């Protein structure tokens, strides 16, 4: 069995999980919601096995490095971290409807990686031959994943908030009735960012430490560095908005969505559109 087959199984499972979560919104049956979570958990375990297998394959080919070195591997890892953060929040707070808006992110990631990215295992170029690679990539992607979860929750907030303002009450709203109340969504959004922000900060710090070790400068305003700082600024603004009157709720949700858009640009846009030191992902 190759890792690629496992990745395919994980991808299909995330698709199934997404469908179940939408069925849960429609059916309002608790058992269906639980099934969605179990499907996501199964997909997560399969994907974990796939990543482990790919790691082993890289040793079999004589390269021997963690699967975190190119665009394919990072997108796969991103989808894995999204499901990880989602499962942690799901087991802790048990708001199943969130799955319908978060699991698709992981599904898109894995599908994109499997269907159109080059999955070849390449040896590490000199710049990446450092144990900082693991610390830096893992902290950054766990942070990104928490922001993805926050973004999914914020989209739910904005939908529900809009519906309620248009006069539709929650009970009458069909699918909407399974959404947590806006206050809960606001709180969940905050909790996800409370996970993401420390991890992003750690990611930036480990990146700076590595840059200082490898290039002799901890900060050089390279587009990737600058965009990570932009993301940090946006979520710092979000955290301060939480304790400022008039910024809670809708504006906080919008900031969270903007923050995730900036995160995605930091992760992908910089490599695709701008030039700089982080060009391994091309």
């Amino acid at each position: 069995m190759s890792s690629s087959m496992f990745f395919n199984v994980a991808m299909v499972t995330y698709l199934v999980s997404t469908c179940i979560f939408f069925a849960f919104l429609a059916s309002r049956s608790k058992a269906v919601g639980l099934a969605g979570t179990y499907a996501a958990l199964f997909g997560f375990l399969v994907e974990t096995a796939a990543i482990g297998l790919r790691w082993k394959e890289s040793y079999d080919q004589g390269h021997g490095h963690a699967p975190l070195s190119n665009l394919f591997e990072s997108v796969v890892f991103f989808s894995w971290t999204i499901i990880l953060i989602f499962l942690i929040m799901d087991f802790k707070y048990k708001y199943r409807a969130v799955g319908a808006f978060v699991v698709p992110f992981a599904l898109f990631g894995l599908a994109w990686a499997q269907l159109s990215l080059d999955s070849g295992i390449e040896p590490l170029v000199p710049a990446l031959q450092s144990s900082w690679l693991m610390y830096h990539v893992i902290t950054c992607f766990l942070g990104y994943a928490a922001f993805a979860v926050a973004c999914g929750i914020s989209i739910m907030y904005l939908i529900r908030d809009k519906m309620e303002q248009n006069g539709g009450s929650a009970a009458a709203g069909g699918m909407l009735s399974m959404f947590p109340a806006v206050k809960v969504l606001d709180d969940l959004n905050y909790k996800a960012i409370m996970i993401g922000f420390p991890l992003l900060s750690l990611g930036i710090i480990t990146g700076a430490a590595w840059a200082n070790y490898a290039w002799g400068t901890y900060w050089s305003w390279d587009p990737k560095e600058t965009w990570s700082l932009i993301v940090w600024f946006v979520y710092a603004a979000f955290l301060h908005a939480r304790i400022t009157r008039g910024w809670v709720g809708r504006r906080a949700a919008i900031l969270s969505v903007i923050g995730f858009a900036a995160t995605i640009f930091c992760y992908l846009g910089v490599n695709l559109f701008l030039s700089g030191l982080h060009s391994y992902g091309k």
Partner: protein
Amino acid sequence: MNTTKRGFAYQLWDFFCSLRLSIFLLIGLALVSIIGTIIPQGNPPQEYLQTISETKFKLYQQLGFFDMYHSWWFILLLYFLTLNLICCSIKRLPRVWKIISEPVLVMDDRFETSLSITRDVKMTGAAASIKDQIVSFLKQEFAEPVVTEVNGEYHLFAQKHAWCRLGVYVVHFSIIIVFIGAIIGSFAGYKGYVNIPEGGSISRVVTRNGKAVDLGFAVRCEKFSVAFYDTGAPKEFKSLLTVLENGQPVAGKQNIPVIVNEPLTYKGVTFYQSSYGPSDEGASYHISVKNRKTGAATQITARQGERVALPGGAFLSVMEGTADVRPFMKDFDGPGAQVEFTPPGGQPQPFVILGDKYQSFNEQHGGDLVLTLASLDQKFYTGLQVAKDPGVLVVWLGCALMVVGICMAFFMSHKRLWARVTDGSVTFGGSASKNPAGFELSFDELMQKLNKG
């Protein structure tokens, strides 16, 4: 006049204390930072003029867009942010400090209504004995309480992690420390770049600002090598460096391998493997010369550009060469050189010679002689990034402080418990600085334990 002045000072103070300013500055910094990621920073003017018009170029130059992270207005925004977080901290810190250092010890009726969690518990016995019971219970399960007696009632107060309320200020302070480290680095440090040919040494570095800095010691490049994977991707760039003091190698700093991700540091100056290239002095070519008629063979060595006499009165000079001709000649590999061969009394003839794998190719030229390129010694130079940054430790201190502060501010909660003990009953009150729902759960657990005990 005086009052308006005072009024203005207060307004200015309020302005810098406001959270709205923080949000505005953070979003503003995020937005303007985008400019410098779209416009390449620090390129020579000609490169910009190839893509944008001259009026645009002048405008951008005026606005500092070509080095925007060091432009006056960007630095000003950073100063505003620093001022803002200092003022916010000064304004709020005393209040927070009071909560920590002078906790409310007595839960009276008015204070009780302000708490979100309260529970009444019936207990048997007089107030004094119940008090002792609760004190030992709280000591075991939560934290040691402070007991205050008011009108025959006992008031207990216990708290956990009070200092985590300072987390936010630790983070703010850490940002200032990072800035201080950056400022130290920009004044007392430098960044530069040197090329050292194999066998050569340097003792001066030209910084990015164009200033020449004397190192006070010298660095010699003993050897440079580059290794490739089978795929052709680079595997390792390695320089062997020796530090020299007064021309003498320093013990323990000889032939130190420096690769990407493994720099060499000496006296606060660090050398990073950054690039490489063929050295100016050119390669040496080992060429075997065979006489077609007699079969007599000799070996000669020619430096690039040097005119060498060959047996029989011919001359040869090597124009250029490479250790691997693949990129230049399809279907060939190994070493190759562009030579100019002058037969005795004849005109110079330019042609290419290859390794001994390609005898028939080499036999096409050379008159009486067959020239084969046996090997070549290519000399390299190594390109090293040189940096001295005495502020970097301060920056790491700031980063460490930031991590500590974030952990305090994000993952810890100041939990407080009050108990008012009267004959036959206890009223509990509780509050937490974060996650009230989670605190209520652990509060209820505590109450259950008390009932069982």
